[in-house]
C-alpha cells in the first residue's frame, strides 16, 4: 500500500478544506436573506432584530466573523446552530449516520443488480434479456425519484401494505444507540426483530435511491464488458478450455470493473450528499434534508459544517477509488 501517497493526499485534504471553508463562508453571506429576520418572522420589531443580530455576532465585519469561525473550527468546534442553539456537530452526527445507512444500502443494491444485469446483458448481447435490461436502465435513469418514491409508497404501503411507508424503525421500537446504524445496533444488541424491522424500513427508500446509480452501473458494466470480452486474452482463456463463467468473471469482469468503480465512487459521493428527495419522501431523518432546511433558514454554522463534511467525504471516496484501481489492476502504479 503506497502509504506516502495516501499521506500526501490527506495533506491535500487540508488545503481543500481551507478553500471550501472560505468559499462557503462567502457564498452564504452573499445570498440575500437575513438569518435574524428568518428566525423571528413578521412578529419581530426592529429592536428585537437588531438585538438578535448582535447576539449572533452578525453585526461584526466579515473578516472578524470568518476568523472566529476558523479559530473555533481548528479546535474541533464547528459552532452553534443559529436555529436550535445546539452544537452543529451534535446536530450533524446522527443525521449523517442515517444518511450513510441509506446510501450504503442503496449502493449495495445498485452494485449487485447493476453489475449483475450489465454482465448478463453483455454476455447475452442482443438477446431479449439484453434489450429488456437496457430498456429498464433507460427508464431507471429518466424516472423522477420523487414520482417513483410516492408511487412505491402508494402501491406497496397504502394499497398493498407490504412495506412500512416511513422512518427507520417502527414507532415505539427502541434499541440502545451504539453506532447509530440501526442494522448494526440491532446485531450488537442481539435483536433479530429490530434487525428485521430496520431492513423492512430500509428496502423502499434504498431501492428508490438506488434506481439511478443502478441504471448507470448496468449500462457502464455492459459496455465495458463487451469491450473486454473482445480482447485476445479472453479468447486465449476460452481456448485453454476454461469454464465459461470463470472466463467471464475472472478474466472479463475484473478487467471491466475499472470504469464501474469510478462510477460507483462518484455515485456514492453524490448519494451521501444529495439524498434530499428520497429522505423527504420517506421521512428519513438524514443529512440531505437537514442541509436544505438549514440553507432555507440561513443557518450559517450548520451549512458550513455540512459542506465541510461533504468535502471530506468526497475527497476520501476519490482516494479510495484510486486505491481500488491499484488492487484491481496491478499494472497501475502510483507515481511517488
Amino acid at each position, binding site marked *: 500500500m503506497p502509504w506516502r501517497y495516501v499521506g500526501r493526499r490527506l495533506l491535500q485534504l487540508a488545503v481543500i478544506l481551507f478553500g471550501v471553508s472560505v468559499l462557503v463562508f462567502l457564498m452564504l453571506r452573499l445570498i440575500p436573506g437575513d438569518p435574524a*429576520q428568518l*428566525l423571528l418572522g413578521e*412578529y419581530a420589531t426592529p429592536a*428585537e432584530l437588531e438585538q438578535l443580530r448582535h447576539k449572533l455576532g452578525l453585526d461584526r465585519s466579515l473578516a472578524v466573523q470568518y476568523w472566529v469561525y476558523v479559530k473555533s473550527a481548528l479546535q474541533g468546534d464547528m459552532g452553534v446552530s443559529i436555529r*436550535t442553539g445546539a452544537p452543529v456537530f451534535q446536530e450533524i452526527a446522527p443525521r449523517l449516520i442515517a444518511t450513510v445507512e441509506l446510501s450504503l444500502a442503496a449502493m449495495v443494491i445498485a452494485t449487485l443488480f447493476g453489475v449483475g444485469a450489465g454482465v448478463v446483458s453483455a454476455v447475452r448481447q442482443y438477446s431479449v434479456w439484453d434489450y429488456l435490461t437496457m430498456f429498464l436502465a433507460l427508464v431507471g435513469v429518466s424516472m423522477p425519484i420523487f414520482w417513483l418514491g410516492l408511487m412505491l409508497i402508494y402501491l406497496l404501503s*397504502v394499497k398493498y401494505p407490504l412495506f412500512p411507508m*416511513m422512518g427507520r424503525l417502527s*414507532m415505539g421500537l427502541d434499541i440502545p444507540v451504539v453506532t447509530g446504524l440501526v442494522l448494526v445496533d440491532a446485531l450488537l444488541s442481539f435483536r433479530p426483530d429490530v434487525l428485521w424491522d430496520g431492513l423492512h424500513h430500509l428496502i423502499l427508500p434504498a431501492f428508490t435511491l438506488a434506481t439511478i446509480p443502478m441504471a448507470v452501473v448496468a449500462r457502464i458494466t455492459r459496455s465495458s464488458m463487451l469491450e473486454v470480452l473482445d480482447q485476445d486474452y479472453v479468447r486465449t482463456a476460452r481456448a485453454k478450455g476454461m469454464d465459461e463463467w470463470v472466463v467471464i468473471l475472472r478474466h472479463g469482469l475484473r478487467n471491466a470493473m475499472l470504469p464501474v468503480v469510478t462510477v460507483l465512487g462518484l455515485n456514492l459521493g453524490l448519494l451521501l450528499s444529495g439524498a434530499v428527495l428520497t429522505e423527504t419522501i420517506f*421521512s428519513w*431523518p438524514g443529512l440531505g434534508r437537514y442541509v436544505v432546511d438549514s440553507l432555507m433558514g440561513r443557518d450559517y454554522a450548520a451549512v458550513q459544517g455540512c459542506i465541510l463534511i461533504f468535502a471530506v467525504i468526497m475527497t476520501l471516496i476519490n482516494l479510495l477509488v484510486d486505491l481500488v484501481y491499484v488492487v484491481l489492476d496491478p499494472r497501475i502504479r502510483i507515481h511517488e
Partner: protein
Amino acid sequence: MRKWCVLLTLLVSLCPGLAGAADQPVTGGTLIWGRGGDSVSLDLAQATDGESIKAGIQIYENLVKFGDNSMDIEPQLATSWEVSEDGLTWTFHLRKGVTFHDGTPFNAQAVYDSFARVIDENHPFHSYGKWAYLSLSLGMVKEVKVVDDYTVQLVTKKPYAPLLNNLALWLCPIVSPKAMAEYKDQIGMHPVGTGPFKFVKWVKDDQIVLERNENYWGDKAKVDRIILKSIPEPSARLMALQSGTVDIADDLDPDSIALVKKDPNLEVIEKPSINIGYLALNTEKPALKDVRVRQAIAHAIDKDTLIKAIFQGLAIPAKNPFAPTIWGYNDEIQPYAYDPQKAKKLLEEAGFDFSTELELWAMPVSRAYMPEPVKTAELIQAYLAAVGMKAKIVRYDWGTYLKKTANGEHDMCMLGWLGGNADPDNFLYGLLSADTAVTPGAANVALWKNAEFTELVKQAQKIFDKEERAKLYKKAQEIFHREVPWVPLAHSTIVRCYNKKLHDVPLRPNGLNSFQMVWKEK
C-alpha cells in the same frame, strides 16, 4: 325475523366494548401526530416556530391559558389574580400541590425564575437564551416579586390590560428551576414542565415522544403516549393519514383536505383562525390621502371571489382588522359591498387622477393568511383596472419587503398578522395606532395617524374590565371602517384532519392545543 332482531340486540348489549365504542372515553393507546417538520427548541420562551410550540404546549403550562376551543382566558397554574388600583401591579395566587415532571415543587420561585430569566439581565439563567419576542411576552413587565410561596406579583411599566393574553401565550411557560439550572442553554432539548404530558425522547427530524404525566394535578391525559412524527412531504402525510399510520395530519393542502372530507374513516374540523390578511393603503401617499379613494378601493375588490379562487374556500371574508374568533369584534359593521360602479363614482368625486400608476406590493412568501400572494396581487390588480385604476405589481425578497414597507416606501402593500396574543390591542394598537406609524420600523404600514382612534385604543390598555374595553374597541373599529387604512381581505380557516378513532379533538382558533383530553378507540 323478529327473533333475529332480539338476538342481535342481545348480542350487542353483551359486548360493552362494541356498544359504547364511540362515546365512552377510554384510557390508553398511542396518538401518532404527523406534521410537516421537526421542532427547533422545546424551550417555549425562545420558540418562534409553530412546530416547537405544538410539541411544547403538551409539556408546559402557564399561569393562565386560552380556552380549548376559544381564545378566552382561563386559569391554569394561577387560580386567581387581581390588579392594583393604579393598574401597575398584578397579583397572582398560585395552584398548590403541583409538581414538575422532575419532582421539583411548583411555587412562586419557579414563576420568578421562569420570568426573571427573560427580563432581568442579572438573572443567572438570562444568558442561556435569546428571548426574541419580548413585545409579545414580558416586555411590559418591569419586575417579578415573590410575595410568599404561592403568591407572585408582576409590576408593569405602565397600566397594560393585554398582559393576561401575553401570559397565556406559549412564550411564558413555567419551567422547572432545577432543570433550567441543570441544562443551562440546552434546556430546549430537555423540557421539564408541569403539563399533562412529559418529555421522553427526541430523535431529530424524526420524532418526539411524550408520555402521560401520572402525577398531573388535574384530569390525567387519556392517551399513554403522543408521538410527533415529522413527515415533510405533504402527499406522504396524506397517505399516512389515509392508511392509518398516523392519527392526525397537519398542514394538508386544500386538495388533500377535500379528499379527507370524502374519506369515511377520517374527520375534518375547521373554524376561522385569529389571523388576518390585508391590503394596507399608505395614507401618506398623495394619491391615497383622500378617504374616498380608499373607500373606492374597498368597493372595487370582490372578496368572495378572492376567497374562492385563492383560499379554495378555506377562509372567511374580513370586514374588521381582527377575526370574529377574538372578543371585542364589532359584528354590527356593514362591510363595503363589491360595487365597481360605486367605486368609480367615489374616485370621480375625489378627483382621482386616473393616469397615476400605483405600486401594489406583493409578499414574496406565502402564509396561512395569504396562501398565494402573487395570484392575489394579480387579482387585485384586475379589480382595480376594472374601475380605471392602474396598479403595478412590485416584489422584493422577504427581508427587504418587511424593511421597506416598515419604511412606508409602498403605495399599497399586502401583509398580514398571524394573531399574536389574540387580544384586540395586538391588532388595533400594534398595527394601526399613531404610535406604531413612525418610520423606520413602522408596524402600522398604512402610516395611518388617527388621533381619535389612537386615543381610544390607548385608553383601552388601561381598563381592566373586559366589557368596558370591548366597548372602546368596537368604537375604534367603526373609525377604522370609515377611514379604510387597510382593505381587510380574509381570515383563513384553521383545519384539523384526523382519524375517526380519535375523539374529543379540540381546535383552538390559533390551532395550538393540548391533547390532554383526546382519547383513542381501541
